[in-house]
């Protein structure tokens, strides 16, 4: 299950959906808005998603993780909107009988989601400048 959420993520409720008597391991990843990126002080982050395709592509990533690793369940929720420092941008939770599969799958899901899911983030800096991450082009005076 992969969802885009305009509302704050509620990790406790999400994690309860993973409960399974066969599960011996639960690994979660949370991405938080941090106060610096590549040396620049960050004040806040805007996330924007192309939601229908993001949920499709995210769902494919979760399905791939279930094929590759011996999982019992896997969920990823990605926030959109204007987030302040310390807010949760993404939550991934997986359960498995054994911890190796749970760690590997959790990492697979977040790595692939960051690389493939159509979500963009714009950093707002203390200087007043902003930048869409990964969208700078050679010659621009922007964040590489």
């Amino acid at each position, binding site marked *: 299950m992969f969802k885009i959420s305009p509302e704050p993520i509620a990790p406790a409720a999400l994690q309860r959906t993973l409960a399974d008597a066969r599960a011996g391991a639960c690994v979660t990843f949370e*991405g938080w808005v941090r106060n610096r990126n590549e040396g620049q002080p960050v004040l806040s982050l805007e*996330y*924007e*998603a*192309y939601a*229908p*395709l993001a949920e*499709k*592509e995210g769902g494919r990533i979760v399905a791939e993780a279930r094929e590759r690793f011996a999982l019992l369940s896997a969920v990823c929720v*990605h926030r959109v909107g204007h987030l302040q420092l310390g807010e949760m*941008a*993404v939550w991934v939770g997986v359960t498995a009988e054994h911890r190796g599969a749970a760690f590997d799958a959790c990492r697979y899901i*977040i790595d692939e*989601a*960051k*690389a*493939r*899911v*159509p*979500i*963009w*983030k*714009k950093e707002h800096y203390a200087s007043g400048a902003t930048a*869409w*991450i*990964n*969208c700078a*082009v050679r010659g*621009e005076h922007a964040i590489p």
Partner: protein
Amino acid sequence: MITVNVQYFAILREQRGLAQERLATAAGTPEALYGELRARHGFTLPADRIRAAVNDEFVASSASLRDGDRVVFIPPVAGG
């Protein structure tokens, strides 16, 4: 000429100044359409850094566009 609906996100939405538009074009592929729109609106991202989606699925930049398609140009992603 075909008529397509184009949706813009992130940096493209800001550079275009709107989130979607309906337009008539002679472009037969997403790549050709992006080139046309980039020239018109000054998009900074070169075509080789953009992916295309049609009707909510990724497609090759050389796919054929059809009348009524909903086209999205996808800047480099940065989730998480």
